[in-house]
């Protein structure tokens, strides 16, 4: 967080503080824009307005207390953060979660991915000036929230995935409701396409805007749909499978041009794949080989003590490659916990791709990166 002062501005240029209070910065991001008329000469993203010192807070909490903090990282997809944290701690402490818990984890994280991408779909449409898709997306997201409320009592911040498993087994009647939702949701994706994806105005706003080439995307360390839209086939679920993703049958949608539309459409296709994975999980959970109720590893204490060592676990969150780097010195608290927030790394590329675009494109590019400031600032 630094004071960017409008130095070296020519007479026909203008300095604009785009944020931190602006309708379309999705939180408290500030972009120091230098514009010439409508054309951006220089754009410098400035983060840190939501910095809560998470990594320091982890050091003063036990492993199970730290889980609550992870909800607040990327608050749109809380289950992904829980899962990433638990994977790291489990790796550090050498805990193996039961198979049933792993299926439930995959199921919950795919549902959460759909919810998160729905938020993206809605807010991106609002950025483009279309307000209606927002409420369509939130209508469906509301159902996922209800499902999570049944599952763990929380709607936004779940803390459902715990170190060693999940907090509780699926309640009675949940799988039916979940199937009902998934069956309802699948045709809705076509609805979204007719409403927004096929709209010529929308295509002209997003196609060819904010192009990121594949090698730039890799060099900037982008991840998730932002990376895959540039045609780089890197999905942690496939490249470094965790939980039971190795058993799942799904494809990774790839883009071609790396423009805003590809980033948008990658996420739309990913939602379809998430539905497929969720169905597979539900089928597996109905199978006989998974004992109902066995969702927590035996002997995992609330006062968990991990042996001294270091571990890094990463997973495919809805915004990209979410990693937790955990260091233990044998005590009750993590000695050090570093969060590799995909939003933090994705948003850095703004300084390169904003140059030369229009002010309206700033909104499109920022929306298509789909950042959550809770994760950027930590």
């Amino acid at each position, binding site marked *: 967080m630094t004071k960017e002062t409008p130095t070296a501005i020519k007479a026909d240029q203008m300095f604009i503080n785009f944020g931190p209070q602006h309708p379309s910065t999705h939180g408290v991001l500030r972009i120091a824009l230098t514009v010439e008329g409508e054309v951006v000469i220089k754009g410098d993203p400035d983060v840190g307005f939501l910095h809560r010192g998470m*990594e320091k807070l982890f050091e003063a909490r036990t492993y199970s207390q730290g889980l609550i903090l992870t909800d607040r990282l990327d608050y749109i997809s809380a289950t992904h953060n829980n899962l990433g944290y638990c994977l790291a701690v489990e790796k550090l402490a050498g805990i193996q979660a039961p198979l049933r818990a792993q299926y439930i984890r995959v199921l919950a994280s795919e549902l959460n991915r759909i919810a998160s991408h729905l938020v993206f779909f809605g807010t991106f449409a609002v950025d483009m000036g279309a307000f209606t898709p927002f409420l369509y997306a939130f209508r469906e997201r509301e159902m996922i929230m209800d499902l999570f409320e049944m599952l763990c009592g929380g709607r936004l911040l779940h803390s459902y995935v715990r170190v060693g498993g999940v907090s509780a087994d699926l309640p009675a009647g949940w799988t039916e409701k979940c199937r009902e939702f998934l069956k309802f949701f699948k045709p809705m994706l076509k609805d979204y396409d007719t409403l927004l994806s096929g709209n010529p105005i929308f295509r002209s706003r997003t196609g060819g805007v904010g192009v990121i080439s594949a090698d730039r995307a890799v*060099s900037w360390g982008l991840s998730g749909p932002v990376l895959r839209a540039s045609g780089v086939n890197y999905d942690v679920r496939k490249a470094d499978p965790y939980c039971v993703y190795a058993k799942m049958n799904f494809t990774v949608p790839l883009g071609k041009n790396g423009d805003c539309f590809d980033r948008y459409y990658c996420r739309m296709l990913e939602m379809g794949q998430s539905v497929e994975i969720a169905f597979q999980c539900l089928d597996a959970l109905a199978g006989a080989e998974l004992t109902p109720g066995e969702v927590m590893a035996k002997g995992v204490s609330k006062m968990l003590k991990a042996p001294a060592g270091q571990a890094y676990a990463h997973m495919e969150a809805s915004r990209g490659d979410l990693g937790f780097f955990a260091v233990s010195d044998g005590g009750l608290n993590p000695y*050090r916990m570093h969060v590799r927030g995909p939003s*933090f790394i994705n948003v850095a*590329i703004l300084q390169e791709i904003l140059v030369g675009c229009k002010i309206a494109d700033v909104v499109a590019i920022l929306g298509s990166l789909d950042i959550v400031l809770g994760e950027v600032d930590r």
Partner: protein
Amino acid sequence: MTADEILAKLQASFPGLVKSEAPVKEYPTWTVPAESVRVVFERLRSKFSFDYLDVVTATDWSGPINPKGYPQSPAVAAGAAAAPSATAKDIFEVVYLVTALSTGMRLCLRCEIPRKEGASVPSLYGIFMAADWQEREVYDMFGIHFEGHPNLKRILTMETQQGYPLRKDYEHLPDKFD
């Protein structure tokens, strides 16, 4: 060729490169001296297609904290200074995790530098653009300077911030925001 073999090959040119005793779990972990960080990564990227920089972070190994104002863990007796852990050393450990997207190989490189004001390692800016903000964050949190970084400023905390928060000896001075 596994990541360990690649690094063993590199060891011929960089004798300071040694395999780490306590690795990051499931990662081939090697320790690299500060002066050859940049060259090693350049070689890894250009010759061995390690093109994706996952993480740049650091650990302050000077001992466990006894934070004021935070709930104390029962392991630390109330009010008592934390016992220096067996792992306590007076070093910063800069950790790099890097991936080769084409082969799926991952490895971890560590760089241990003496823990002092103005501790510095070479920047990876230019080899990996992903290093830009991650190095700024490490500088912000640990005060480790990255030589050759063009824009090494605080990123998450205020520019008026005193001290480096993730150092183990950091003490928060109350300011107008408290």
